[in-house]
């Protein structure tokens, strides 16, 4: 971290006061942000992270949003970014979820301990009554020492009061005695009170920035005191008037219990399949890839460039050839991938905002444990059925390098992406239920075996699940759309160039004839071991470029009558387990070390041919 005052990166008047929005995940911060700033919002990415920060204006002040965090420190990217914005804030608007006071006030008290002027927006007050709770707001304000304003942000209630209060009423609150007593011992080493607190709390980044050494930190003592204080406040201000579990509490429990949770999960996955696998992958893609990109755009580019470039030259191949960077790449990325990725992120955002996703993580934790993962890994696995490239990037959320390696390997190996899934389903359909079941069985066995084995041999320790289960809520469509947009955009900017580079490599291989050499080199394995016709190797090679190309290549061979049903099955198994597409391979190399990536790549080659070969020896 070169420049530690990150807020300077956003183009603002240096004298303008900075209002910073702070809160736990999913408490409704963005509603406040939008209400304060209106339409003129600037989204900037923090260097070295995937975290975006929105900033805008309210009157003559700058308003900055931060990622939802449980506390200010350096546990992950979100926290580091939030910390650097919060440290140099002038006024803090802390949004608190009233139903989760025990959790949220921990962050509130920490900000108060920093000495920042704070306004607390006590959000989701409408749910308080529903859940049989009563809150003494004046008492809470008195205990914290800062103004507390009840709000129902989604309905606009209380927002005007918050706006008024921001201008005049924000003030520093009651610090913990332990902070008050010790702050001065480190205050002279740093520029701000807020930094002094984090030095006391042993934040390694802040300590390193100020070249401080030999400080005896008090993190444990302060956290303990803060926890005790918060629980004490909650006890004083909150009263439960009835104990009737609401429907959402019951539903939440049903989602966790395997007996009811697994059927619920199956129904949800079926709905997701209907939406993405049928609606997006077929109806929408037919339109985006088939018509807009595949016809209008493709014809436009060809009409424009073909007269100039011809079709034979290397440049023509590179730009507008079969794998051209102006033809195949944009058609693939925008026509096929983008709709699927948007669809997947849309579904994932709904699952996340409604509170369902953490419950799925809990439900699947036990099974994933035996693969060396914890429940959190269900997120990249679900995403993998959309796009393995996207899922591989998402493995960043996993807690250890070991888990990231295992998850990446399993994704590359045994999860067919949606681009491929459609063609595979089309080929399996006519083969009947038995062959389909055999296919699914083989893939599931490989997935489970590979995971179990990796769990045995990969050194290190996986992290355990510890996850907050928010109350179930109806997600807000605005939030869902914003998340979908931000994540999809991040994916396209990150993976787009890799697809481009992949296309260039393949064009070069094809033009120089190396592609044929590789295909021929595969022939002995294809013919001898897999008992497939020679041409299947070409389909396999195509599968490296785009996974669905490989499957589509098989489709052609079937329609020419070159493969019998058993051979189709063998080829499908090989192509599913086979390395992911070239973009996914590049992401794997980018995310993992060279050694690990090579292992994943060559490993999936070997396993795919071995498995397909064994099946071939038995059934063909």
């Amino acid at each position: 971290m070169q420049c530690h005052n990150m807020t300077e990166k956003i183009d603002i008047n240096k004298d303008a006061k900075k209002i910073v929005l702070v809160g736990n995940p999913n408490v409704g911060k963005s509603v406040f942000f939008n209400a304060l700033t209106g339409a003129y919002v600037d989204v900037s990415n923090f260097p070295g992270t995937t975290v975006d920060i929105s900033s805008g204006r309210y009157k003559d002040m700058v308003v900055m949003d931060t990622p939802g965090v449980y506390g200010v420190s350096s546990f992950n990217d979100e926290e580091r970014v939030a910390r650097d914005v919060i440290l140099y804030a002038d006024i803090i608007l802390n949004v608190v979820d009233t139903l989760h006071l025990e959790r949220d006030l921990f962050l509130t008290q920490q900000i108060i301990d920093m000495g920042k002027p704070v306004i607390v927006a006590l959000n989701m007050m409408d749910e308080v009554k529903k859940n049989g709770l009563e809150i003494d707001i004046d008492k809470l304000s008195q205990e914290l020492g800062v103004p507390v304003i009840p709000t129902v942000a989604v309905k606009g209630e209380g927002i005007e009061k918050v706006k008024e209060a921001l201008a005049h009423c924000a003030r520093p609150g009651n610090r913990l005695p332990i902070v008050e007593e010790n702050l001065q011992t480190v205050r002279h080493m740093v520029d701000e009170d807020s930094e002094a607190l984090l030095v006391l709390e042993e934040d390694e980044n802040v300590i390193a920035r100020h070249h401080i050494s030999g400080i005896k930190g008090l993190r444990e003592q302060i956290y303990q005191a803060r926890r005790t204080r918060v629980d004490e406040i909650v006890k004083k201000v909150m009263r439960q008037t009835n104990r009737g579990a609401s429907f959402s509490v019951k539903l939440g429990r049903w989602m966790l219990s395997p007996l009811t949770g697994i059927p619920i999960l199956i129904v949800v996955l079926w709905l997701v399949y209907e939406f993405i696998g049928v609606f997006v992958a077929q109806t929408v893609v037919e339109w985006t890839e088939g018509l807009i990109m595949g016809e209008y755009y493709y014809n436009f580019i060809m009409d424009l460039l073909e007269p100039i470039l011809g079709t034979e030259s290397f440049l023509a191949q590179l730009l507008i050839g079969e794998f051209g960077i102006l033809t195949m790449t944009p058609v693939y990325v925008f026509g096929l991938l983008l709709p699927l990725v948007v669809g997947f992120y849309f579904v994932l955002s709904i699952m996340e905002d409604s509170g369902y996703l953490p419950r799925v993580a809990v439900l699947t934790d036990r099974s994933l444990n035996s693969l060396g993962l914890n429940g959190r890994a269900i997120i990249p696995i679900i995403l993998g059925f959309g796009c393995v490239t996207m899922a591989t990037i998402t493995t960043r959320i996993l807690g250890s390098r070991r888990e990231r390696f295992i998850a990446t390997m399993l994704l590359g190996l045994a999860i067919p992406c949606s681009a491929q899934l459609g063609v595979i389903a089309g080929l399996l359909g006519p083969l009947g239920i038995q062959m389909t079941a055999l296919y699914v069985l083989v893939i599931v066995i490989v997935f489970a075996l590979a995971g179990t084995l990796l769990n045995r041999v990969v050194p290190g320790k996986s992290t355990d699940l510890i996850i907050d289960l928010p109350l179930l809520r109806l997600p807000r469509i605005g939030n869902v759309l914003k998340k979908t947009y931000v994540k999809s955009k991040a994916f396209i900017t990150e993976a787009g160039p890799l697809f481009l580079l992949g296309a260039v490599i393949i064009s070069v291989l094809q033009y120089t004839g190396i592609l044929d050499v590789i295909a021929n080199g595969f022939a002995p394995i294809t013919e001898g071991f897999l008992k497939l016709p020679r041409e299947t190797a070409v389909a396999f090679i195509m599968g490296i470029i785009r996974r669905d190309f490989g499957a589509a290549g098989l489709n052609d061979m079937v329609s020419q009558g070159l493969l019998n049903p058993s051979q189709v099955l063998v080829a499908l198994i090989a192509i599913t387990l086979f390395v992911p597409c070239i973009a996914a391979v590049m992401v794997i190399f980018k995310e993992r070390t060279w050694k690990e990536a090579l292992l994943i790549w060559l490993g999936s080659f070997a396993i795919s041919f071995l498995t397909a070969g064994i099946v071939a020896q038995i059934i063909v």
Partner: protein
Amino acid sequence: MRLDQINKGQRFLIVSIPDKQISTQAIRLGIYEGAKLACVYKLPAGPVVIQNGMQEIAIGRGLARKIEIEPLDKGDAGQCSAII
């Protein structure tokens, strides 16, 4: 006694959380040495779900095995001390 041995509906006191990295994260969710919590649900061989007020937190079985607890009587400080 360890957290994985708790019964559903049982209240308990957290005696110790051995892992420093985990304990600093857990304390924010209301899980810390000395906290009085309740187990609201246990998945078969899976995570233990505990409650602190309205807040529910799921803890993987492996981690639960490491957390030392002491069961509390039902009568101790009412059913839900965090709220009342």
